[in-house]
């Protein structure tokens, strides 16, 4: 820490860079994958049920494309909009997966490491870093105050000696 302090004061603000990392250690990729799967299965169920229970219509539904059939009911319409939202979520999830894989590769970490472990390690390090910085700062302040006391003592002795010699 003192090496960092002496060489690069700016690096001491490391925790400012890692604000989003604090919350990220609580996000589980596994949980995200499970939730995404749950949503995709839910949409499939909704689509199936909506297609099974269509309102009476003169047009034979077998000839229509799936999306048109679904658009005929409120639940079908929901399934269509939810389906496109979920596609975006799946894309986001794929982005996270590739970004994190790149990050692991960048730092040469094992590809099997989970984001929870990775970000937890970083958070622990950053908090130790900040803690040590505070400790160091406290020690320095104590040193400075000791020095100033010593300085005042020296001045006092000097004044006394002048007084002595003037006699």
């Amino acid at each position, binding site marked *: 820490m003192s090496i960092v302090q002496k060489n690069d004061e700016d690096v001491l603000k490391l925790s400012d860079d890692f604000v989003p990392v604090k919350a990220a250690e609580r996000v589980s990729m596994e949980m995200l994958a499970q939730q995404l799967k749950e949503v995709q299965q839910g949409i499939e169920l909704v689509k199936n049920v909506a297609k099974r*229970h269509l*309102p009476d219509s003169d047009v034979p539904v077998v000839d229509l494309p799936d999306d048109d059939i679904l658009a005929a*009911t409120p639940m079908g319409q*929901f399934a269509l909009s939810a389906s496109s939202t979920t596609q975006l*979520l799946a894309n986001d999830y794929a982005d996270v997966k590739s970004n994190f894989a790149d990050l692991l590769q960048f730092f040469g970490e094992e590809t099997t490491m989970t984001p929870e472990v990775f*970000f937890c390690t970083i958070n622990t390090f950053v908090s130790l870093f900040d803690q040590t910085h505070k400790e160091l700062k406290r020690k320095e302040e104590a040193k400075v105050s000791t020095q100033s006391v010593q300085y005042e003592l020296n001045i006092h002795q000097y004044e006394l000696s002048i007084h002595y010699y003037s006699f």
Partner: protein
Amino acid sequence: MLKMGMPLGAVQNALKKEGRDANIINLDPEKPMSRQLQPKVEETKKEVTKLKGGNVARKRIHWNKIDESKLSADSFWNQAKEHSSLQLVGLDFDNEEFASLFTSPVKNHSNSEKPAAAASKVASKQKVQLIDGRRRMNGSILLTKFKVDYKTLARQVNAMEYIEAEGNELRGMLQLLPTKDESLALRSYLPPQDAPQSEIDEAIAKLGECEQYMAVMLDVPDVKDKFQCMVFRAEFVHLAESIKDGTKLLIEACESVKNSERFRKVLLYALKLGNALNTGGANEEVTAITLDSLLKLAEVSQTEHLVD
């Protein structure tokens, strides 16, 4: 009707509705009817005389019947059937006590001055209960939140329309759908489906809150799947937001770590310091370290303090 799996109580109700003697169902088809009916008639006469001519309403148990075809040959119920009659006939019991415990006189208000409305009010309070008490209580608490008429609710569920309800409330309603046994009990209580609507409505109105809800849901096809869709719809936004927030946080965290110049510098300082400490050792002149090695710097530093 019994062979079709209808509960005994339901068959007796059906006989009553047609103006026949409900006790006929308890008779042995192998023996002549006249001989079997005689003592019963006498017994009934006795009871009627004891109750001074007033009409009596016998309390009923709406229990769940096990289908005989599901019973194994050596089950208790089959043994019980073989060893004795399933009626009270032949048992020593006090008719008066039976009457006091299980029957209540039905008062005739036609001559009294009280208006008929009062009588109907009392009758309307006596709701028919067919399901387990705890389930009924929990269900009633849930259903009181929904002021909508159950028939309207059933229509909305059938069309899977949007219902203003939380996901957990809809989940509660899903769990409150009648089970197989409850469906059987309700079907046996309700008039047949081809009966006039007014008769069905009247029977439903006599049911408790939960039973009314279950009764209307009985006729919604594919009701469970439809409810599951509605639950999913109600919970979708929350679930989608949770996934979106999670992915957003992870992407931001990945970028902040990868783009932090300060972190790269720290890693470099750590590497240099570690190499300086390890000079002459096995880990001399290392070019890369795992991130968890950073945590060991703190350990080294603490050990140094201990040594000091």
